């Protein structure tokens, strides 16, 4: 190697109990490069980065910084060296301002007082240099998620980080925000800083990274120059086999109206309107895709449909029956199912077994002695059926559901809801955080359900998912839903603009 790498992992080994998370991982990050780490969930990419950031200690191996071995015992050591990390969940204090968040934990200058105006000025200078438009005096709680991410990056730059680790940074961004982030990353690279981008999105790697390290099963498979590779090649290396990134689908054959929503409104706990009059019509045998950046009423719409969120106005009709005031159990009994975005907090009870989770909501149908006692045999049979049919990888159905990987847990939730929901399936962010193999499986299952005549409402922030699966597409922005359009009549760019509230065709408009 010609230049001395800025940071290097050398033979890192890390075990979690019986799981070998990192198996002799070695990689170099050169000064002034954007280095992508690609891998499926559980490939060990996050573990490797958390070791570099001092969150875990390796069982073997060394970390080098500017060519010399260093000990990084905790994040404070990493920060002192010049390593910074933006986690998937932001670590900001919502009631405090941008400046306060950035200087949080820093001791600078003399005396006990904070030099707020000095800090704000320095912050503004850094922000201007890298195109990170942020008002230093704004409070975090009022900032959109994309701007909060900028604040996280500013925090690192304010501490003069030489190496920035970004963990799945684009998951929460609109296409336009993503472009802005990439512009910032290019500007950081031009300044000689290095960026490590942990991701499993191939097209982002092609768009921004200089080199890419592919990981699989805890090992480094390869480190490649992005210029000399392709999405298809990367996907094959990541999964270890050829993958189809598009699902084969036939045109929908929509049937009768299954679900009708009229002028639905809802408010959050603080009394702010979250749904501002939603109208939609969902037919049997079709997938209606609801695109949009999260926080525009997506979760509220899904929860209102299943009955978890009380609505303040409007009607929900399942078939011809008005179910607006009916409880969750009644809606489920009439053939509605819901796959929530938060599969660990809402979709499952992680402390209970796979079997217990397989019958959540259906426990009264797995009984004997006239409904008095649970029928363990029937519960286990149902669980095994779901596990087998949807390929849930689990040693047995007595395992606590929380020990399943995200993809396998999602397949369990999906299997349960699909098994039950004879009419309408409300699906929220069905493949968030899943690896390619699991995404494929979930997509195939949803299409199969559509073809079997279920009506599917799919809420997703992933344009790929919407474009690939939906028969009609609408955009939810600030609690309002645009008129659904046939999927082949809209482009990715149009959707992106509508998601940001900038299309005159959408009902909502950005301020």
């Amino acid at each position, binding site marked *: 190697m010609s230049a001395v790498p800025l940071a290097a992992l050398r033979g890192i080994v890390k075990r979690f109990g019986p799981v070998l998370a990192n198996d002799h991982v070695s990689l170099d990050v050169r000064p002034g490069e954007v280095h992508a780490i690609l891998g499926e969930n559980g490939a060990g990419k996050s573990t490797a980065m958390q070791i570099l950031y001092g969150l875990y*200690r390796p069982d073997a191996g*060394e970390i080098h910084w500017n060519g*010399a071995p260093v*000990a990084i*015992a905790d994040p404070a050591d990493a920060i002192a060296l010049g390593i910074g990390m933006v986690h998937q969940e932001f670590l900001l204090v919502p009631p405090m301002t941008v400046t306060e968040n950035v200087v949080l934990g820093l001791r600078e200058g003399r005396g006990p007082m904070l030099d707020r105006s000095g800090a704000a000025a320095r912050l503004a200078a850094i922000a201007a240099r890298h195109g990170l438009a942020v008002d230093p005096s704004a409070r975090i709680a009022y900032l959109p998620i994309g701007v909060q991410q900028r604040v996280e990056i500013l925090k690192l730059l304010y501490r003069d980080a030489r190496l920035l680790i970004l963990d799945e940074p684009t998951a929460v961004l609109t296409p336009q925000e993503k472009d802005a982030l990439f512009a910032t990353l290019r500007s950081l690279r031009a300044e000689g800083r290095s960026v490590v981008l942990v991701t499993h999105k191939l097209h982002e790697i092609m768009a921004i990274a200089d080199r890419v390290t592919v990981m699989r099963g805890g090992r480094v498979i390869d480190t490649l120059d992005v210029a000399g590779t392709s999405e298809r090649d990367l996907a094959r290396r990541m999964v270890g086999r050829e993958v189809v990134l598009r699902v084969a689908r036939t045109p929908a054959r929509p049937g009768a109206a299954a679900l009708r929503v009229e002028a639905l409104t809802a408010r959050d706990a603080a009394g702010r309107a979250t749904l501002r009059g939603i109208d939609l019509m969902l037919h049997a045998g079709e997938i209606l895709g609801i695109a949009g950046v999260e926080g525009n009423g997506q979760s509220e719409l899904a929860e209102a449909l299943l009955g*978890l969120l009380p609505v303040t106005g409007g009607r929900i009709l399942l078939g011809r029956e008005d179910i607006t005031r009916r409880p969750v159990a009644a809606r489920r009994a009439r053939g509605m199912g819901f796959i929530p975005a938060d599969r660990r907090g*809402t*979709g499952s*009870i992680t402390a209970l077994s796979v079997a217990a989770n397989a019958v959540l*909501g259906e426990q009264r149908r797995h009984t004997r002695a006239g409904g008095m006692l649970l029928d363990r045999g029937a519960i286990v049979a149902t669980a095994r059926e779901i596990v087998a049919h949807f390929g849930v990888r689990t040693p047995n159905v007595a395992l606590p559901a929380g020990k399943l990987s995200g993809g396998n847990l999602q397949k369990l939730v999906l299997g349960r809801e699909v098994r039950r929901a004879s009419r309408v399936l409300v699906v929220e962010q069905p493949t968030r955080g899943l690896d390619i193999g699991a995404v494929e499986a979930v997509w195939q299952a949803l299409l199969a359900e559509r073809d079997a005549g279920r009506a599917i409402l799919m809420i997703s922030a992933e344009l790929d998912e919407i474009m690939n699966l939906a028969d009609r597409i609408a955009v939810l922005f600030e609690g309002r839903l645009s008129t659904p359009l046939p999927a082949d009549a809209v482009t990715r760019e149009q959707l992106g603009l509508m998601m940001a509230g900038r299309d005159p065709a959408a009902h909502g408009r950005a301020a």
Partner: protein
Amino acid sequence: MLLAALAAFAVAGLLFIPYGTDPLSAYAFLFAEAFGSLRGFGFTLVQATPLILIAQGTVLAWRAGLGYVGFEGCFVLGAAAAAWLALGGTPDGFPYALPPALFFPAVLALSFAAGAVWAGMIGVLRVRFRGNEVLTSLMANYVAAFIVQYLVSGPMRQPGSLPQTPRLPRDTWLPYLIPEARTHAGILIALVASGLVAVLLRATPTGYEIIASGINARAARYGGIPVARRQMLAILLAGGLAALAGLGAVLGVQHRLMDGLAGGAGFVGIVVALLARLDPLAVVPAAILYGGLEVGGAAMQRDTGVPSAVVFILESLVVLFILGSGLLRGWRLPLPWSGRWRATSRKAAE
């Protein structure tokens, strides 16, 4: 778990030394008193009876996700209800007496209902108005204690005597199983209740729903489980079980109602449930262990002058150590690493 219990015994053993007793023979004496003879074991069962019932109540309420601690209140009101029926309402009595075949079912139902209503009030405050059930149930204990104080110094007082009711009619006493130890049939009630709680929680859809509501109310609601109703059911049953503990104390031990009847059983029962890790089947041996410690401690104080407070300390230490062991499992991991890792990696860096 076992190690934690042994550690607690070892630490508490140090407390015997100032009294000139060596810990091993003190423990041998303690356990011989509690478990070494039928008579001793009978006393132990008497002590264990209310602990089992209250611990099962704790299991139900806490598994449903409620931090209910109002068992003392349910205990004394259940005792008052039982005494009221046994006395026929007032010291003057009903104009007629219930035959035993009717009296015992009636007194069980009435006492259970008294505790259920008392706990149910807290349940309504919690599930409907989001009141903090820990605080409200704790305060309700005082109210219940004062209600009983009022009853025994007013309407139900034995004329011209201490503030207590007259002795209950002999027919209303719970029968003795081990007469020499005055072990009453309350232990049977406690064991039957334990079996029912175990079946309810482990084998019925309702139990599944209670546990789901307690672990993750959000997911339970999502599954269509009526969380508030299941929590109400759990707290009603919990209050009722604690009231039966009071019934046992009145009809089985004291044979009259008086102030201060619960004597902390409402809290020791919670401790027993924690020791059993909220497992209804583990509650029974845990309660018998604690009952035995109290019997042995009292005997030790009587015979050797070592204060029975040592036993209270021991009981508390067992729980602290066992709860602590759960915490330590999580905490222990980074501690040895940090030292070793820093040392080796520094060496490597040199």
